[in-house]
């Protein structure tokens, strides 16, 4: 895969030069008319933003009530001590993974096509982790004492149990958030400077200027920037694997049939990337149209994202198959019961829907024609998002509600608070995403200019191909992707 990059054709469609690239992306933020409610695109933006704003308000109300009343307002019970809270936590964390994969792993693999989607995929990562973090924080029941999860010297004789993956989660997720935020913020600096230089309003100039931290585009700045970016890329790469593996350990180290299975870590990671790409497509497809960015997020990008979604989806389905087969092969009646209960128990509908959404529907993407049909791709992405949520539903309450002893069985029924909190985090995600679209360039301007330089300004395409393969040995071997 790494060596494939030299054979990609142009990643920018249409007639562009440095100026038009900067203009087309920069004006989305700088041109006020784009956000004027009377313009067509402004109307769309304001509607989406208001939807998000509504969600945030709902979220605040529910959280307020939750803190006042306690987590009894949720549907969690015994035996289903984990319900919507953990489902949503895992779902949101998973969604963030596409951003990290695109920004870190594809960077190390020298996949240039990442350049037009990395910025907003990274933003999605950060916002998704924020939504995710709320759930376990509130599930502690006493969020004001959440700092007890950290090992700090204290007089309470409180020390986290380091054998518990729940504690690993605290470290994994907080590291993930910190690194993703730094990565994103660092990548923004050159573009913030561009916005500073092009902004007309004084306040914008000051704010962008402040955020650009004195960037002047000198060779020294670029040199430092490239180094720092690669280091953060290297740091982020293991996070793609580690964060969701640790999330999977939350379940797998237990003894519960349906949770305790060794395939969980790779299967969770693949599921996270699967759901993440579905969310990237969910946003990218409408937004590229609204802001006329089709030249930058091309059909080729959509095609590749669909292929990654298909491949990771198949890995996830391999995981379903393994669970099914080894439940039989284990020879254990508890394992067998768990899988039968999943498929034909009281929540059997969720398993059927999950298979429809994650196994059946994405197979449409085998067809190159369908991958070029935006409506179809968008619908498939929705199915995947729903399917991946259902997967966590099937894993969490459905495994919990009937464990070893029939006398301790029970049903799990989510309450209005569960639904409104889930809706609220979707609102928060929308709210943050549309604020991001409003104030920051959603596509990396300088990386698109770099891409333009590579594609169009190189003497000729053919000689470029060869040039790519004849980078000096010392540079390629000791260079970018160590």
């Amino acid at each position: 895969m790494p060596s494939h990059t030299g054979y990609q054709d142009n990643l920018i469609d249409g007639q562009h030069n440095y100026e038009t690239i900067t203009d087309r992306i920069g004006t989305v933020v700088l041109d006020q008319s784009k956000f004027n409610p009377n313009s067509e695109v402004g109307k769309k933006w304001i509607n989406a933003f208001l939807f998000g704003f509504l969600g945030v308000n709902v979220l605040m109300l529910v959280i307020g009530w939750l803190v006042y009343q306690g987590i009894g307002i949720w549907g969690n019970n015994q035996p289903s001590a984990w319900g919507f809270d953990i489902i949503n936590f895992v779902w949101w964390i998973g969604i963030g993974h596409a951003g990290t994969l695109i920004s870190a792993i594809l960077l190390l693999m020298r996949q240039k096509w990442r350049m037009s989607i990395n910025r907003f995929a990274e933003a999605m990562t950060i916002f998704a982790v924020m939504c995710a973090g709320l759930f376990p924080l509130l599930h502690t029941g006493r969020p004001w004492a959440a700092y007890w999860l950290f090992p700090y010297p204290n007089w309470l004789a409180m020390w986290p149990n380091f054998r518990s993956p729940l504690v690993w989660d605290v470290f994994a997720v907080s590291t993930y958030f910190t690194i993703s935020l730094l990565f994103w913020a660092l990548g923004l600096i050159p573009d913030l400077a561009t916005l500073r230089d092009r902004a007309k309003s004084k306040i914008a100039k000051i704010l962008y200027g402040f955020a650009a931290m004195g960037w002047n585009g000198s060779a020294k700045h670029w040199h430092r920037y490239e180094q720092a970016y690669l280091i953060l890329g290297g740091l982020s790469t293991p996070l793609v694997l580690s964060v969701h593996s640790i999330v999977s350990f939350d379940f797998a180290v237990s003894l519960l049939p349906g949770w305790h299975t060794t395939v969980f870590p790779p299967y969770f990671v693949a599921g996270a990337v699967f759901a993440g790409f579905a969310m990237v497509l969910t946003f990218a497809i409408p937004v590229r149209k609204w802001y006329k960015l089709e030249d930058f997020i091309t059909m080729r990008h959509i095609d590749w994202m669909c292929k990654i979604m298909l491949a990771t989806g198949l890995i996830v389905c391999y995981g379903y198959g393994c669970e099914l087969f080894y439940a039989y092969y284990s020879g254990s009646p508890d394992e067998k019961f768990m899988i039968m209960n999943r498929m034909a128990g009281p929540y059997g509908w969720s398993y059927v829907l999950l298979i429809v959404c994650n196994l059946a529907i994405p197979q449409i993407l085998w067809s190159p024609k369908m991958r070029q049909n935006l409506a179809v791709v968008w619908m498939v992405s929705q199915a995947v998002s729903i399917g991946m949520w259902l997967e966590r539903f099937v894993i969490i309450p459905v495994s919990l509600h009937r464990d070893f002893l029939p006398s301790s069985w029970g049903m799990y029924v989510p309450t209005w608070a569960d639904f409104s909190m889930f809706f609220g985090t979707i609102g928060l995600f929308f709210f943050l995403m549309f604020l991001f679209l409003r104030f920051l360039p959603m596509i990396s301007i300088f990386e698109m200019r770099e891409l333009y330089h590579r594609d169009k300004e190189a003497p000729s395409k053919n000689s470029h191909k060869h040039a790519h393969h004849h980078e000096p040995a010392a540079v390629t071997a000791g260079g970018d992707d160590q």
Partner: protein
Amino acid sequence: MENANTLRLDKAAPLGGLLAIIGGVIMATTGTLWQSYIYGWLFMAGLTLGALGIVILHNVIRATWSLSILRLAEAAASPLSLFLMFLSWIPIATVGLKEIYLWADPVRSAGDHVLHNKAFFLNPSMFIGCSIAYFAFFIFMSNTLRKSTIRQDQNKDVTESQKRANIASPGLLAFAVVVTFAATHWAMSLEPHWFSTVYPLLSLIGQVNCAVAIATLILCVNANREPYKGIVNAKLTKDLGNILFATTMVWAYLTLSQFLIIWSGNLPEEVPYYRLRAELGWQFLGWILIWGRFFVPFFALLAPKTKRYANTMKWVCIWIILMHILDVFWLVVPGFERGGLFQSIRLGDVGALIGFFGLFLVGFSTEVKKAALVPTHDNRLRENLDHA
């Protein structure tokens, strides 16, 4: 421009045959015939299937690194090699079955209710029927893809690549599924009470890692000889090094995950697998694998300098191959319950390695001569050479 095949393998096939006979004699005379046989066979089967995995993967992703080792992988997983693997499987499925697999012996497994629960999958007819289906699938994939690349070398018909991708993409999926069942039947069921859902993936990644190491070793050793001269450059060795690095990491990741989950669960149906491997000296082998199979190649391949030169890469590859031999030993042999590690090292196992390596060599050296080592249907490697 035509690349004459200059790997000096003229005498390899007879040599391989001789090794197979020597190995067979050692195995037969040292008292651990069937245990050693299955160890050697699983080692060879793993290499062959690892190579087949690379061939199928290449036809999906068409990367340059996989192109450079395509012909070696194709030869290692050629229909002939797979057929030899099938032939050498016949004794396992017939005379050796009861000796090797507890579940196949009605006397030893009598009254075992766990085995009774899985008797539908673990019984001699199912084992034989399914294995024949696995082989049929492997041979079909290998034959179709290899014939097509050789045909395209001659007629330069670009539609062949697309045709291969159309077969290889669903083929990769089917390969994963078939390997899962095959790994369960052939290897996991050696300890029939134990199960782990990640085991097939774990064994596959180890095999692919070792197959890439062998192919890279051949490339690096012949770096100054035609047709590899000029093609094996710093960029290619770096790419291959990175693939070895990535597969090493995935191996460690899956190994750690499996261990951690089983250790913390501490369930009686799972934990004996590690219990067996944690005492009587076996723990030393475990430590050797942690350090040798992961940390050593990890740090070696992390350094850009290692990957820049064919000469250093060569040593890393040899190391990985040796560690893989130990890894398969660790997976297979403790299950025979011969006692501690030192009582378990038997001459028969060495004979098995020699014999099955010989058999592997027969298939590989016969097939590798039949096609240009640097494929001519895809010019990317040659372009490197022309502009060097």
